[in-house]
């Protein structure tokens, strides 16, 4: 219990620091602007304009949340070490694992909050234009939140041992690859070379399969879905985040903080 209290203390302080970050507001502003711009763009289509509106909304939420997750996440641990703020903190009865988890939770809460703001605009725009809102939309938002949890974990992982520059490269790379592995596996599966087949299949297994969190298309089309379409990806996300955080803690605990 004490441990949770310490994690929460670090998390809330991280949140407090993040909400004073101007980059966050810039990205949030653009996210909301794109959601609103969707109204104009969707009017260009004579069919399914509500759907196009929501497509833009989902894309904006995803793009700008991921951008915040990566650009704030990659400095998360590194900056504490670089600025030496970590020295006094770790001299307190607080393990490095608790510190790292606290930083992770703090950033995740920050990013979920800003996502919630964009979702409010999404809902408002949908209500005003009469676009449908149903359980599929809720599922899509939950899965975007899960994707963000994975992305923040990736950024935190790299931030635990490398510079923000390198961590951004790696995180963006993994994010992009994570959205390609399914297609890559399918392309690989049609290859005659067995090694290509097994390599692409392996990449698909090992890299985060971020397309599994992409439910926006289904939601915007109002397609029917099963509960397992939602909870299986959520479970996958929880598992993946745990693996990343355990690895990050392992690395961070062995580091010399000099």
């Amino acid at each position, binding site marked *: 219990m*004490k441990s949770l*209290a*310490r994690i929460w*203390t*670090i998390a809330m*302080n991280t949140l*407090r*620091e993040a909400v*004073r970050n101007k980059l966050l507001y810039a990205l949030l502003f653009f996210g909301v602007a794109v959601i609103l711009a969707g109204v104009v763009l969707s009017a260009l289509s004579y069919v399914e304009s509500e759907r196009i509106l929501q497509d833009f909304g989902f894309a904006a939420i995803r793009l700008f949340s991921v951008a915040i997750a990566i650009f704030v996440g990659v400095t998360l641990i590194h900056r504490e070490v670089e*600025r*030496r*703020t*970590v*020295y*006094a*903190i*770790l*001299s*307190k*009865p*607080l*393990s490095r694992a608790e510190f790292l988890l606290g930083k992770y939770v703090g950033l995740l809460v920050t990013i979920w909050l800003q996502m919630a703001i964009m979702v409010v605009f999404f809902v408002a725009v949908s209500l005003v234009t009469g676009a449908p809102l149903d359980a599929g939309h809720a599922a899509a938002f939950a899965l975007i939140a899960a994707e963000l949890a994975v992305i923040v974990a990736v950024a935190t992982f790299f931030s635990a041992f490398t510079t923000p520059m390198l961590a951004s490269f790696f995180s963006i790379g993994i994010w992009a690859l994570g959205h390609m592995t399914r297609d890559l596996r399918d392309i690989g599966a049609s290859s005659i070379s067995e090694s290509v087949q097994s390599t692409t299949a392996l990449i698909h297994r090992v890299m985060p399969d971020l397309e599994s969190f992409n439910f926006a298309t289904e939601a915007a089309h109002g397609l029917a879905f099963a509960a397992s379409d939602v909870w299986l990806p959520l479970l996958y996300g929880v598992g993946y985040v745990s693996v990343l955080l355990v690895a990050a803690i392992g690395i961070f605990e*062995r580091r*010399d*903080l*000099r």
Partner: protein
Amino acid sequence: MQQHERRIVRIENIVKDFRPGFGLRVKRVLHGISLDVNDGEIFGFVGPNGSGKTTTLKVLMGLIRATSGEATILGHSVTETAFRREIGFLPENPYFYSHLTGREILGFFAKLSGVTRGRRKARISELLEWVGLDHAADSRLETYSKGMLQRLGIAQALVHDPRVVFLDEPMSGLDPIGRVEIRDLVLRLRSEGKTVFMNTHILHDVEMLCDRVAIIVEGRIRYQGVIEDLVGSGLHEVDIVAANLSPETVLELEDRLAAKLRGVGERVEIRVAEKEVNDTLRCVLAAGGEVVSVTRHRVSLESFFLSTVEGGSEIGE
């Protein structure tokens, strides 16, 4: 109190290698240092810049891992975390979250240290007053000067009322009044029965404050002991002021007697150990010099320190 608990901090044969860059090249910063800090004392860890004081403290705080050797605080291995409720740490040139105010940062550290909600507020106000930051308590740290950060760092180290306090260069960045205040604070901690481990390169502070010192030079402990032993050990020095000395004579004195010379106008001040006085006087007179005065005085920590650093010979223990 049990026997082993008298030794609050125990460092045994700590070696620390750094690997700067990516190569295999290692740089040994601590060459097997050992020292003990006893309950209730103010311990001075003294050495020139770059001698390994901060590195030793980082090992003690679990921030870096010793390559080999063992270090314990209050009987706990420094890799544990729970016992840190009992210790406070002021890092060198401390830096804290600049988006918080002084009061907020102390609240943050108090929560982390497990200070109960009820005691937190009063304790923070008390500390802010102690370190003289009550007027700036609600300003953000980005507006703090280096000296204010230093004071806040000390407050942060004491927020949970620890038994042992580790201070890395506590006087740096402070004005003369600040130094006096912190000095008083440290003495007050001792009077409350706390143990203080203090890194410093300012000998004056050591002389004023410390019960015991260890001198570290280039990663090796050169001396460890009580200041009185050191200063009152019968080691005396003699200052001889002479005039009319030729440069050749000056060189000879320096070479032969390891004397320290200082030009004072036309005259030369020669500082030598007590046993060298006769040889020195003989040498001066033989060269046609003129002895102006001869003064005997107790050796200062500074000159002891300098001779330790420069001489390279291990003294004490």
